[in-house]
Structure formats: structure tokens, C-alpha cells
């Protein structure tokens, strides 16, 4: 499959990239690792007139800690996130999530910024950034703004980004002692995408849940926080029966997607089962 013809430009600064996006509006698309954009261009689901390749902009792929926040550059590959010692120690949810994206070759090219901007509901990062209350930093013609993850995903393949805005970094909190995290996924057997993926950040003490945040991708048209489960768990014992009862609310209030592989009923069932597993796993790591 061959993409439709397009013009290509590889700016060397964020400023230059934004100017190009501003100038070309809807006719331009941003290319980072290319593992979301190029497949849809090959299917001709996207036919941009201009491709702005930000892959050569220096300084956008770093992972660094500042106080209680870890900043991940938009161009950090899934492989870099998976193998970051800093993240493994202080925010292991992201490396755990990155490690189950696609395969080695995909993780070598795909980027965190590209995946978030594409906003595929079956991608793996959305649940994790929601559960972490991450912030997505975007730069546009009007300057830099910080978008809380909960405001970022608008609908399927649609985010709060403006047409001339670019994600420059993602900020996640340092996970402290007493808090456990987990990402558990039912992968589609052919594509590897999440049929259901559940990310949990859980603060425990004395065998009870002090606070938990649960982000779910793959189930609905956009990733969401399972607030009904979070409420049902707050202050409760973290035994299997209690967790299972709470996890039964994993798909409450969402329009559950159905497809050839998993009907909406089956997917809702999977959402409960995987939420239970993810909560129990996070609880076991909260020590």
C-alpha cells in the first residue's frame, strides 16, 4: 500500500513546526515515529497535503525528574519509556504499559506523544495517563499550556489539541511508598491492541484502599476513569470479594464498544474481570 502523494518537511525546532501547522491548517499532519499516522496514510484514511516530521527536532525525547514530577519528552519511544531506570523506579506504571505495546520493532519507533495525540481508544497509554492524573504539555501559536489527562481525550481519535498545537511533553507524578500501580491488558490476538486495558494507581494502608485511580482503555470510544469503581473501593478492604464487587462497576455509564472479536456484553465482562485483576495486583505492590 502506498500513501497518497504529499509534501514533506522536517523542521528542526518546535517553533518552526508550529508555524508550518498554523500556515497549513487541516491539510498538515504531524509525523513523529509514524506508527499511528503511516498506517492510516497507507490505507488512505488520511491524505494530508503536508507531513511535518518532528522526528528530527532535538531535545524532545528526554526523560527527567524535577521534584515530584517526571517529565517525558513527546518523542520518547515506547522502548525508551519501557527501559527508563528513572521511570521503573519512580513511576513503574508507564514502563509496564509501554512494555505491552505492539512488539519490539513497534516500540523502537512509536512515541508517547504520537500515541497520545492519535488517541486510539484501544491504545495502551491513555488509561495509564488518566490513572496517573498526568499532564500533557502542548505548545501552539499562543504559547504553552498544560492539559490535564482527564480533559485531553475528547472522543475516538480526537483530543483537546488545537490544529496548530504540538505535544512537547508528558508530566507524571513520582509514585511514593505505599502506592502500588498495575496495567493489565487483554490484547487482541491478532493486532495486539487492547480489547480491554486497565491501569490502576492505588494507595493502601492497613489492608484497605485509601485512594485509587483507575483508567480504562479499549472498552469505550475513548479512555475513561472508572469512577464508580474508585468510589466503591475507597476506604474498603482490599480482599478479593470486595474488589470483585467494586470491579463489577468497571463499565458503568459508558457506551461499551462491540466488534467481531468481542461483543459489548463480553467486553463489559472483561472490563470487570481485568479491573479486579489490576486492582489486586496494584494492591499487592503497594507494600
Amino acid at each position, binding site marked *: 500500500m502506498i500513501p497518497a502523494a504529499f509534501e*514533506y518537511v*522536517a523542521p528542526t525546532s518546535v517553533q518552526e513546526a508550529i508555524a508550518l501547522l498554523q500556515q497549513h491548517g487541516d491539510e498538515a499532519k504531524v509525523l513523529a515515529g509514524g506508527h499511528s499516522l503511516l498506517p492510516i496514510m497507507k490505507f488512505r484514511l488520511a491524505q494530508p497535503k503536508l507531513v511535518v516530521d518532528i522526528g528530527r527536532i532535538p531535545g524532545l525525547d528526554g526523560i527527567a525528574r524535577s521534584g515530584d514530577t517526571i517529565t517525558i519528552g513527546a518523542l520518547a519511544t515506547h522502548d525508551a519509556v519501557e527501559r527508563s531506570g528513572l521511570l521503573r523506579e519512580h513511576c513503574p506504571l508507564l514502563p509496564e504499559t509501554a512494555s505491552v505495546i505492539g*512488539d519490539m*520493532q513497534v516500540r*523502537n519507533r512509536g512515541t508517547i506523544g504520537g500515541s497520545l495525540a492519535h488517541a486510539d481508544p484501544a491504545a495502551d497509554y491513555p488509561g495509564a495517563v488518566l490513572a496517573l492524573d498526568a499532564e500533557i504539555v502542548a505548545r501552539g501559536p499562543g504559547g504553552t499550556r498544560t492539559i490535564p489527562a482527564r480533559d485531553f481525550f475528547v472522543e475516538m481519535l480526537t483530543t483537546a489539541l488545537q490544529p496548530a498545537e504540538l505535544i512537547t511533553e508528558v508530566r507524571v507524578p513520582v509514585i511514593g511508598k505505599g502506592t502500588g500501580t498495575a496495567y493489565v491488558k487483554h490484547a487482541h490476538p491478532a*493486532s495486539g491492541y487492547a480489547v480491554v486495558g486497565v491501569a490502576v494507581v492505588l494507595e493502601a494502608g492497613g489492608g484497605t484502599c485509601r485512594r485509587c485511580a483507575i483508567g480504562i482503555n479499549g472498552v469505550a470510544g475513548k479512555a475513561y476513569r472508572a469512577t464508580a469503581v474508585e468510589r466503591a473501593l475507597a476506604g474498603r478492604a482490599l480482599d478479593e470479594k470486595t474488589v470483585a464487587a467494586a470491579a463489577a462497576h468497571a463499565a458503568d455509564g459508558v457506551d461499551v464498544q462491540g466488534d467481531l472479536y468481542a461483543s459489548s456484553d463480553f467486553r463489559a465482562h472483561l472490563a470487570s474481570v481485568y479491573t479486579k485483576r489490576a486492582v489486586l495486583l496494584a494492591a499487592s505492590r503497594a507494600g
Partner: protein
Amino acid sequence: MKHKISLTVNGTTYTHEVEPRLLLVHYIRDVLGLTGTHIGCDTTSCGACTIHMNGKAVKSCTVLAVQADGAQLLTVEGLARDGQLHPIQEGFWEEHGLQCGFCTPGMMLAALELLQRIPDPTEEQIRAGIEGNLCRCTGYQHIVNAIQYAARKMRGEEPRKAAV
């Protein structure tokens, strides 16, 4: 508008004018004539088009040739040196790591990064390392054996063959 790219493939530097939409795998096969890199699914799934770009395994059906401007590439044609098979090639030969051979070039280049990362992988690590490469003939066991053979050889050990 065509773009001038310059890149090194298996140690040889090439310069060409290419259309932006030219996929790297088509550049390698059709422009350079290096047809060892195969096109299987064309959808980033099967791994037949796997090459190394700047030392990392990538699926060249999902990279634009212009993105590889300035890069160092390694394809299956660059594995053997001075007529000597690479240990991974030798492993596939000795352990019957292929039947039809279509997946083999991509499989070997995925195996190369796997062994560069983990010189002494467990069977589970080998299977995880080649999860992005599909084989419809072998059932994978002989591929795993081939990679274990190569791992031993690359570590400087006697590359004893797997019991069959």
C-alpha cells in the same frame, strides 16, 4: 517534490532523490535492489520487512525513506562477512529455522537485536523478542532453537545443536 536522501546500507553509502511517500522497504527493494528484505502484511504486523535502522530493529514498511535520511541501515544482505555466515544465519541453517524462508530475513534481524540486548536469553525471552515476526511454517520451535544456537556461538561457546 522529491527529496535528496543519503544513507548507509550494509556499509555502503547511497544518495538518491525520492518522493516523500516512498516507503523505506520499497526504497531498499526497488531502488537499491536489495530484495532480501521482504514485504509480507504491509501493515506493521508480520515483521518480514524488519531491518536495523541506527542499530534498532524496525519494520521498514512503516518508515518513510525520507525518515531514514542520514541513517545507518543493516539488511539481511549485510549479515554475512567475507563469505562467512553470521552466527544467526548459521543457527537457522543448523537448526532448520526455516521452511519456506519468507519470514527468515526479518526473523534474523529481530533475533539480532534480541541477542544484542540479552546475550543469554531464556526461551520465553526469545519468544517475546520475536513476537513481532510471524512464521506460518515452522511453529516457531526450530526458530527458537536457531536463536539459542546463535546465542551460544555469539557468546563464544560451543554451539551444540538442540536435541530433536
